[in-house]
C-alpha cells in the first residue's frame, strides 16, 4: 500500500490544532535517547549472504518434529494435513480484510459461516462467533458477557482452580476495569462442591474447564442446575478442543457459554501464536455476545448469501459501546479450523480423539508400573494425566531432553502442593515407539 504523504502545511495545521509547536515537542514524552536511536546496522550485503545468515540462525532452532513431544497444557501437538497450510496460504484468504461489504466478500463470509456451523455442532451450542484471539481471552470475554447478561447486577465470577492457570491470569488481566470480583481459585484445592457453595444471587457465572487442566473429566451431573438455581451462567472451557470429538458436548449438559482454544484444529503450535479463541453461546444471549457473527440470508432474487449479522453490536457502528473490540485478527485461523474440521469430518475428528485417548491411557498404565513413578490422576481422563515423579520435574525434563524427548508440564509452577508432579500429554502424533522411549527414559532417570 502506498503511503499517503502529509504536506508540511498539513503537519503545521495538525500541530497547531493539538497545540504542539513541533514534531519534537509532540514526542517529548519519549526519552530523547530513544527518540532517534542510532541504528547500528551492518553494511548492506547481497541476498545470497542474507539467506546464508538466516539459514545459519535457523539451524540453531529445534522444532517439535525433532522430539518425541509429551508437552500439552493448553497448546497441543497434533497432525496438520498438508492440504490445510496449502489452502489457507492462498492469496484470496491470506490477505482478505474485514468483510464489511457482503457484495464483494461472499467467499470469506461463507467460510466463516461454515466455521460457526461446525463449531456449533462440536460444542452443542446455538451460536458461535468468529472469533477471538485465543482460548484465554475467549474465557475473559465470556465472564464479561455473563456480567452483561445480568445487566451488570451480578458481578461475582467464580472460577475453578482446575481452570488453566494462564487462563485465570488472563481473566485477571482483562477485567480490572469491570468492577467485578473474581473468586473460587484462592483455594487451589477447592472442589466442585466448594465452588457450588459459592454460587449466590451476586454470581454472574461459574467457570469450569472440562477436561480440567489436570486432564480429568469433570462430574457435570447437576452442575448446570446448581449454577442456574443461583441465577448465574455456566461457562465451560472446552480445552483441549479435540476432546469434543469423543466427549458429550457442553451444550448437552447445560453450558450457557462454551469457550475453547482452536489451535489444535489445524493451526499447529506456531511458537505460541497466532491461536484461535472459540466462543459459543445459547441463542437467548446472542445480543450480549461479543465478536462477529456471520448469518445466512437471501438476496433480492432469492439466492442464498451471507452477511455480518447483528452488526449494530459491533465497533464499526457502536464504537466504544460495542460488546467487544475483537474483530478481524483471527479470521485466518478460524478459516484454518473450518478447513481442518471439514477435512477431518465427523469420523476423522473422532478417530483423532480416540487415538489421543487410547495412547494416553496406554502411556499412563506403562508409566504407573515404573518404580518411583505414580499416575495420580484419579477417575476418567482424556489425553493428559498427572505423574508423581521421584525428582523435581525440571530435572526429569532435562534428562528427557538429552534423549530427544520433550517432557510434560511442571505443575509445581502453578500449584505449590503439586511437588514433583508432571502433566503428561499424549496425542495421535505419539507413536508406540515414542511412548516406549519415554517409559524407558523415565525408568533410567
Amino acid at each position, binding site marked *: 500500500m502506498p503511503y499517503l504523504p502529509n504536506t508540511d502545511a498539513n503537519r503545521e495545521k495538525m500541530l497547531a490544532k493539538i497545540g504542539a509547536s513541533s514534531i519534537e515537542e509532540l514526542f517529548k514524552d519519549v526519552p530523547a535517547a530513544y527518540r532517534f536511536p542510532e541504528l547500528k546496522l551492518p553494511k548492506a550485503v547481497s541476498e545470497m549472504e542474507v539467506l546464508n545468515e538466516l539459514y545459519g540462525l535457523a539451524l540453531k532452532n529445534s522444532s517439535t518434529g525433532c522430539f518425541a513431544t509429551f508437552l500439552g497444557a493448553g497448546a497441543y501437538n497434533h497432525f496438520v494435513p498438508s492440504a490445510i497450510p496449502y489452502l489457507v496460504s492462498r492469496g484470496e484468504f491470506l490477505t482478505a480484510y474485514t468483510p464489511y461489504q457482503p457484495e464483494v466478500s461472499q467467499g470469506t463470509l461463507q467460510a466463516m459461516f461454515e466455521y460457526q456451523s461446525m463449531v456449533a455442532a462440536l460444542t452443542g451450542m446455538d451460536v458461535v462467533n468468529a472469533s477471538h484471539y485465543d482460548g484465554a481471552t475467549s474465557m475473559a470475554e465470556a465472564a464479561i458477557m455473563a456480567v452483561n447478561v445480568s*445487566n451488570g447486577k451480578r458481578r461475582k465470577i467464580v472460577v475453578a482452580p482446575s481452570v488453566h492457570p494462564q487462563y485465570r491470569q488472563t481473566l485477571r488481566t482483562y477485567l480490572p476495569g469491570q468492577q467485578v470480583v473474581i473468586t473460587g481459585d484462592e483455594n487451589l484445592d477447592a472442589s466442585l462442591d466448594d465452588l457450588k457453595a459459592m454460587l449466590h444471587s451476586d454470581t454472574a457465572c461459574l467457570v469450569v474447564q472440562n477436561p480440567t487442566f489436570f486432564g480429568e473429566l469433570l462430574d457435570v451431573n447437576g452442575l448446570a442446575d446448581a449454577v442456574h438455581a443461583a441465577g448465574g451462567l455456566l461457562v465451560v472451557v472446552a480445552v483441549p478442543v479435540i476432546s469434543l470429538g469423543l466427549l458429550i458436548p457442553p451444550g448437552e449438559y447445560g453450558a450457557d457459554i462454551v469457550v475453547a482454544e482452536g489451535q489444535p484444529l489445524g493451526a499447529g503450535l506456531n511458537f505460541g501464536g497466532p491461536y484461535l479463541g472459540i466462543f459459543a453461546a445459547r441463542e437467548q444471549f446472542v*445480543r450480549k455476545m461479543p465478536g462477529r457473527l456471520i448469518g445466512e440470508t437471501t438476496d433480492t432474487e432469492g439466492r442464498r448469501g451471507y452477511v455480518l449479522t447483528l452488526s*449494530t*453490536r459491533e465497533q464499526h*457502528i*457502536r464504537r466504544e*459501546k460495542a460488546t467487544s473490540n475483537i474483530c478481524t485478527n483471527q479470521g485466518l485461523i478460524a478459516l484454518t479450523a473450518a478447513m481442518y474440521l471439514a477435512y477431518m469430518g465427523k469420523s476423522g475428528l473422532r478417530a483423532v480423539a480416540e487415538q489421543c485417548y487410547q495412547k494416553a491411557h496406554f502411556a499412563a498404565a506403562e508409566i504407573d508400573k515404573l518404580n518411583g513413578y505414580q499416575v495420580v490422576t484419579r477417575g476418567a481422563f482424556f489425553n493428559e494425566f498427572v505423574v508423581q515423579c521421584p525428582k523435581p520435574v525440571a530435572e526429569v525434563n532435562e534428562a528427557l531432553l538429552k534423549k530427544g524427548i520433550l517432557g510434560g508440564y511442571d505443575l509445581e509452577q502453578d500449584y505449590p502442593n503439586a511437588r514433583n508432579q508432571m502433566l503428561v500429554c499424549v496425542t495421535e502424533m505419539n507413536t508406540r515407539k515414542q511412548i516406549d522411549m519415554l517409559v524407558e527414559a523415565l525408568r533410567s532417570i
Partner: protein
Amino acid sequence: MIIDPQARYTETHEWVRKEGDQYVYGITHHAQDALSDIVYIELPAPGDTFSKGDTIGTVESVKAASDLYLPMGGEITEVNEALTTTPEVINSDPYGAGWMVKFKATNPGDWDSLLTPEAYEQLPGE
C-alpha cells in the same frame, strides 16, 4: 415531524409525559424515523432506580443501536413488555403503544428542565 403536545422532550429525542403521579417515557417520532426499522429493545426491570441522565436500556434498529437516556431520575414502576416481541410498535406508534417505561420521579422538578413541545420543534437541524 409528529409531536405530542402533552409531552416534554430532550435534545436526544426522548419524550416524557405525566400520567397521574408517575411519568411515561419513550422515544420521539423523529428518533424512530432516524433509526428506521426497530428490531430489538432492551429495557430495565421494575424497581430499578436511575439518576437523571442514566442509560436505562438500548434500542436497536437495522441501522444502529442507541442508548436510552432517562432525563429525570426515578424508580421504574412498569415496563412495556409487549415491545420485547413487537418492537416495531415503536415505529408505528412512538407516543402511544410504543411507550417504554413508567417511573416515579425522585425529583419532580426535573420535569421543568425538559423541552416544551414548541422548543423541541425548534431544535436546530431537525
